[in-house]
């Protein structure tokens, strides 16, 4: 392969991986949801058409769930184009990815397959195997009844007679032998049965029966999952006068950061000690899991007004900045954070003002770090383009340490997270757990590795992913 085409290939792949870490097809501060979806879908088709085996192996590279589901759907829709070896590898990657996808993502993926009329033997087998291997298929049938019905009828998946009739008749049947189905049926007639159902199912029924919110929230409490408890903090505080107790150990760092920022600054201050301890513990866990350790790291963190995100992703960019900051604080031997508008207490940051990255960047360089990590959406406007310029000159003239840019926002117009100029490699980031992997990816992005190396790296990750090894995280 000539070097020019190799460079194109490497850039394509880095672009794709970048996008797959940041984009979720949701509305962003600067762009609408439809724009985002259009951009990412095009990118998927392009990479699928040109680099099929790398496309499949992207499943092993920690790309976000939205993109994993999209990759699986696209692979299943175009099986005819793959060679037998490719198909074999894809099959295993898909099965492994599905196992690790959150259930709702998997179920929506199956619905999507039905909507796109992807109905080949392999797609049917994937759906069938997933349902056959599910830990509690009855529970799935109750919680995701509509999605499952659609998936099963589309894929002709065999079902035990009772589950089939449950999917078909729901509460209209006379009686069920399976306890959960029977509870579901009774809940349509008896209030008490309501509280034995999964929350998301019970909530709809409670609304239908006009159960007062405080009664419902009090009685459903034992059935809540950790994620639901976190989501219902505000609702429970309002209805019950006390927020649900949450177990911070069960929550990942990014979610905790999002939660902390969802509180009004006054309350954050009041609960500072508690929140701080939670975040620190979650960061320690994440750092231990990643097994990475960095030297002297400085972080430049963007808290400009645009970090408030969108109605789909409230304060998401700011939450990621906070999470990355806490993570690197734990994972490096020395650490300093420089926010675009200085703050004494990280926990109390709010989206504020214009984006001046150059000033904190200079402060960071003056601190003498070995690595500078910038977390920003890349819309720099005070003044525009200054940060990239500062890095370029500092690297050329002053022997400054490498500066990498993590961007939580995908820019559909350029099919990539918005960068800060040629001197700063930019990668998309969706979750703080990916940070060590992303820093490796930055090497590729900055042109430090060849396509062959990239392929080898992908292959190794795919192997580890299939073996369920830790490197796949």
């Amino acid at each position: 392969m000539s070097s020019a085409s190799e460079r194109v290939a490497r850039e394509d792949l880095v672009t794709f991986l970048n996008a797959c870490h940041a984009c979720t097809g949701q509305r962003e501060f600067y762009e609408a949801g439809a724009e985002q979806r259009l951009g990412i879908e095009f990118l998927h088709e392009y990479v699928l058409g040109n680099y099929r085996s790398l496309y499949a192996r992207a499943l092993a590279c920690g790309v976000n769930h939205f993109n994993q589901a999209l990759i699986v759907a696209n692979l299943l829709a175009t099986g005819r184009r793959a060679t037998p070896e490719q198909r074999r590898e894809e099959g295993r990657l898909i099965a492994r990815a599905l196992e690790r996808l959150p259930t709702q993502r998997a179920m929506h993926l199956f619905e999507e397959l039905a909507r796109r009329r992807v109905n080949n033997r392999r797609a049917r087998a994937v759906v069938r195997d997933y349902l056959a291997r599910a830990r509690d298929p009855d529970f799935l049938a109750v919680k995701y009844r509509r999605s499952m019905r659609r998936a099963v009828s589309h894929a002709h998946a065999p079902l035990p007679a009772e589950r089939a009739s449950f999917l078909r008749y729901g509460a209209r049947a006379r009686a069920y032998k399976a306890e959960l189905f029977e509870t579901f049926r009774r809940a349509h007639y008896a209030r008490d049965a309501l509280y034995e159902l999964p929350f998301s199912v019970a909530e709809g029924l409670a609304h239908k029966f006009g159960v007062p919110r405080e009664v419902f929230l009090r009685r459903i409490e034992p059935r809540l999952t950790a994620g639901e408890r976190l989501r219902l903090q505000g609702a429970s505080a309002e209805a019950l006068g006390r927020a649900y107790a949450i177990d911070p150990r069960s929550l990942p760092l990014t979610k905790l950061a999002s939660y902390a920022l969802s509180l009004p600054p006054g309350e954050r201050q009041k609960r500072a000690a508690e929140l701080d301890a939670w975040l620190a513990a979650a960061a320690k866990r994440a750092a231990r899991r990643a097994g990475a350790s960095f030297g002297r790291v400085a972080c430049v963190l963007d808290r400009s007004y645009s970090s408030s995100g969108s109605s789909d992703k409230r304060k998401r960019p700011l939450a990621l900045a906070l999470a990355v900051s806490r993570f690197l604080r734990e994972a490096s031997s020395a650490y300093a954070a420089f926010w675009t508008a200085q703050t004494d207490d990280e926990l109390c940051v709010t989206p504020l003002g214009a984006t001046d990255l150059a000033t904190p960047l200079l402060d960071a360089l003056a601190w003498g770090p070995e690595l500078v990590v910038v977390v920003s959406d890349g819309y720099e406007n005070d003044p525009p383009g200054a940060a990239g310029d500062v890095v370029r000159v500092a690297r050329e003239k002053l022997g400054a340490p490498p500066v990498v840019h993590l961007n939580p926002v995908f820019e559909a117009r350029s099919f990539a997270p918005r960068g800060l100029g040629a001197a700063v490699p930019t990668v998309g980031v969706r979750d703080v757990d990916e940070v060590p992997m992303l820093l490796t990816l930055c090497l590729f992005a900055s042109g430090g590795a060849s396509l062959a190396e990239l392929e080898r790296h992908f292959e190794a990750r795919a192997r580890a992913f299939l073996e369920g090894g830790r490197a796949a995280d």
Partner: protein
Amino acid sequence: MTYHPATLSFEGLALGVPQAMGAFRLVPLLREGAPGDLRIAPRHYGRAPAVVGVDSRPLEPGIKYVSYVPHGLVVASTSDGSEAAFGAKLGREAGSCRGVNLLHRMVKGEGSSAAGGQFRMLPLHLALEGFLALHFGGPDVLWGEYSRHAARFGLSPRSERGVSGHGLDGFDEALRVFEIAPSQVGSIVLVADALAAAFVVSHPDDYRRLHRSLLEDFYGELIYRYAILHPETARAEAEPIDGARVASLDDLRAELARARRQWADFAALAAGGLAGREVRAERVREAGPFRLERFSTKLHPDEECHIGERIVRADGALEYLKSYRLSAAQVRRGFLLEALAASGWRFDEAAERLGSTRDELARRLQNAGLGYILAPGLLASVLRKS
């Protein structure tokens, strides 16, 4: 009218780095340590058109004008420099009748007069009223060139059009994504790098609240057209840092400061159509140390012309400003009317002053939409000739 010459100074305000989005570039105006003795709050009037009594109450006989008034501003001030706050009257709506808002006067005192400086005003209407009323009385001697209607009723009915900010393509989005600086008290709106409007209030908190009200204001037809024709603003960049001049981090800091200065120069250039312009100002109201004025730059078809209103502190600091850029047709109308008035409405003299003939002047008046003040016979003969 009692106009006096003045200079439109942006005293006490610093220009920030402009932010571009689509056709728009917004230049932030920054003010450190706003004293807070003049506060401005919005008041919303809904979608109904409004009848504004210029010299009388809205339901009594007198000069009226009908317009869409989307919002008003309530200005509260103290003369001893203490913090100004709004009284309980803040939420009270103006009286309305069959979906028409009745508003008494452009600027109206509110609350007990003893409490002093709180009044309500209709933003930009003050300025536009001044423009509309320009030589509104018409000819004071009935020269043969003018119609009887002009002699009897002056220029009535006089009307002008503007486009609401909602109608400007992409303006909503540009305002939404604009990142307001903590000390920002105003902004200058450029459309395809043409100065469209300036808006300044006294306190950063008020600006934050009123930022989106720029959408409710009206803009000239030129601005509307530019917003459609130039969907992307030209990219502007500071000169890149030259590595040869950098030997330490401090040098880099200096280079960054230089880039900032370049941006400030650019912003000053962009604001040049308003900042420092000679204007004619008319005092409308005084409250303590504050003076509410409306102003207009010289009206000339070859220049960029703005009208507006401002509140100036006794020491010259700008406390409030709202400007409107007149469209070319509006400038022509104002220009012709001024030329006529300056010649005592003597038609030949006015034509000479403009360096044209009687016929040409008549045609220009007709083309500018002022044909109705000319005698029908004169107009017909001119139109026949062409």
